[in-house]
């Protein structure tokens, strides 16, 4: 009997790895620290360059992996300790208490409606609200409520209204130990804190937002129901600027993300086109250092953005933003690369493309797993050319952005998820040997 596999991280890379392994016949323990799988892809509105609705193509995969008989979904759970070696890992996992009985909750949502406490929604990048008892987004898998104990004031209303008596306020954390043969790490990325570059006025200037916040504003399941409106006054912005490389390609000691995050040029052009489709008369400008649109179809997409949609591309990196205190409009001073004169242009909304950084907690996780990190804090590969999925510990593989920018987009994460599953299968198959 082949040993099972632990997959850490329920984003698209982790989901793909789990599916392939489950289809291959392995028992998969998919561990996700937030209440639902889905990861970053669930937060996006549309994917480039096909402009598919992101959650529409992700949700079927989420449901498939959750319902697969070989997959054991452990959401709202974290890895606490790892012992052993390839073929024989003992992984201790803590299942955090949801204070909701998973066997009884149907996800009907009555409790959320009645809950009196509002808190910033992590899924909405803190620009939208959720309740103390909540489902992070409508397509969440598993479709079970979670109570955030820190926000909850124990009023008991949810318990009163739940038609399935699913509230269990006595729930305790549960420790389980898994005995597996291999581990796949797919913990994804976090987003650079743009307040570290104070000249862009984030977060004090209300109409300066990050690209992920923009995705939530554009998304129909987001805080504005998919309407792009200015945070300061709810009006439709008529002039929008994107500033690229906020934190990326930055060698300064106190920033220290010298790499290119590799997907920001692509998503900025995607978002610019989306905005132009919506409001063709608006001014949309992308301020870039280099336009990195590699791969199939992306340069053509950039060309179309210019010629068909009228997106403005300006090769000049703004140094600062100035806010008009009465209108909350932003002024950008920049050198026009053609005329070589400095101009001031007013924008209703400015979107920052932040660096994508190693996820918080990766240091502790790497220590637990006994694997090394690279100079940037992403997972280090055993051999970046010949073994691009192997971490520095045998039997532990990785997929997706936790390995660093590389090419970094969704198809690449899916590819790496499948590839990591392949590596696991090689190492664990009866007759395959531990290589």
């Amino acid at each position, binding site marked *: 009997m082949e040993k099972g596999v632990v997959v850490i991280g329920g984003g698209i890379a982790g989901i793909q790895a789990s599916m392939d392994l489950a289809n291959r016949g392995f028992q998969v323990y998919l561990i996700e620290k937030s209440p639902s799988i889905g990861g970053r892809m669930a937060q996006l509105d549309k994917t480039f360059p096909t402009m598919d609705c992101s959650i529409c193509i992700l949700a079927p995969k989420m449901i498939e992996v959750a319902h697969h008989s070989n997959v054991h979904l452990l959401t709202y759970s974290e890895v606490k300790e790892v012992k052993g070696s390839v073929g024989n890992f003992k992984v201790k996992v803590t299942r955090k208490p949801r204070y909701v009985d998973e066997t009884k909750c149907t996800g009907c949502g009555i409790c959320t409606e009645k809950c009196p406490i509002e808190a910033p929604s992590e899924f909405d990048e803190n620009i939208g609200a959720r309740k103390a008892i909540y489902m992070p987004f409508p397509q969440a898998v598993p479709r079970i409520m979670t109570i955030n104990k820190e926000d909850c004031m124990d009023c008991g209303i949810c318990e009163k209204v739940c038609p399935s008596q699913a509230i269990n306020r006595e729930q305790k954390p549960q420790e389980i130990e898994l005995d597996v043969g291999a581990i796949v790490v797919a913990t994804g990325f976090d987003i650079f804190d743009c307040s570290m570059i104070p*000249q862009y006025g984030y977060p004090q200037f209300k109409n300066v937002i990050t690209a992920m916040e923009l995705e939530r504003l554009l998304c129909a399941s987001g805080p504005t129901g998919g309407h792009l409106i200015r945070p300061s006054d709810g009006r439709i912005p008529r002039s929008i600027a994107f500033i690229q490389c906020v934190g990326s390609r930055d060698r300064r000691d106190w920033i220290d993300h010298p790499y290119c995050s590799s997907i920001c040029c692509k998503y900025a052009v995607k978002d610019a086109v989306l905005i132009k489709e919506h409001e063709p008369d608006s001014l949309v400008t992308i301020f870039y250092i280099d336009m990195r649109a590699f791969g199939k179809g992306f340069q053509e997409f950039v060309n179309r953005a210019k010629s068909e949609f009228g997106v403005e591309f300006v090769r*000049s990196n703004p*140094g*600062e933003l100035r806010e008009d205190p009465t209108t909350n409009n932003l002024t950008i001073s920049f*050198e026009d690369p053609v005329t070589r004169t*400095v101009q001031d242009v007013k924008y209703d909304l400015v979107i920052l493309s932040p660096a994508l950084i190693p996820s918080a907690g990766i240091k502790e996780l790497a220590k637990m797993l006994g694997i090394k990190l690279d100079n940037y804090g992403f997972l280090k590969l055993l051999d970046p050319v010949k073994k691009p999925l192997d971490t520095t510990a045998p039997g532990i593989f990785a997929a997706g952005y936790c390995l660093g920018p590389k090419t970094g987009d969704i198809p690449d994460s899916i590819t790496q998820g499948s590839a990591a599953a392949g590596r696991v299968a090689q190492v664990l198959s009866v007759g395959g040997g531990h290589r």
Partner: protein
Amino acid sequence: MSSLDANFMHEVANTPRGRGVLACIQCGRCTNSCPVAKVMVEHNPRRLMEMIILGLRADVMLGPVPWHCLSCFTCLDRCPQGGDVGEAMFAIRNLAVKDGNIPRGVLTQARSLFEAGRVVTSGRMALIQREKCGLGKEPIVDVEAVQKILRKTCFDKLIQRGL
């Protein structure tokens, strides 16, 4: 436009304050942060770096840019690549001075430094004021020591070229 000097970029990069030119990626953040660039079209730090990299030696050395820098170091703090534009300004100025180009304002201060050990000396009114209000005599500079140092570094010869 002057003819190109292929070695100029390295000439600048080999000075102690010009090392950053090799790191410049021409992103333009320096010009977009510069308080002088906002009010003076000829003062364009990014363009200066571009000219250095391209080897436009004469345009750089005889142009207005390095001498209009405020040395506020805003560009330096914001440059994502360690281009050290604010430092490169000094490197260019040093090279220009070696060629005999020194603006009058700088020359005046340099001469005062050599002759009196201070770039700005107190006028008669200021000295009288000190006496009247009980501040006492001004501190006395050891001009001999200053001149010894400045002769050793050939400072005196450099300012001669500008005269």
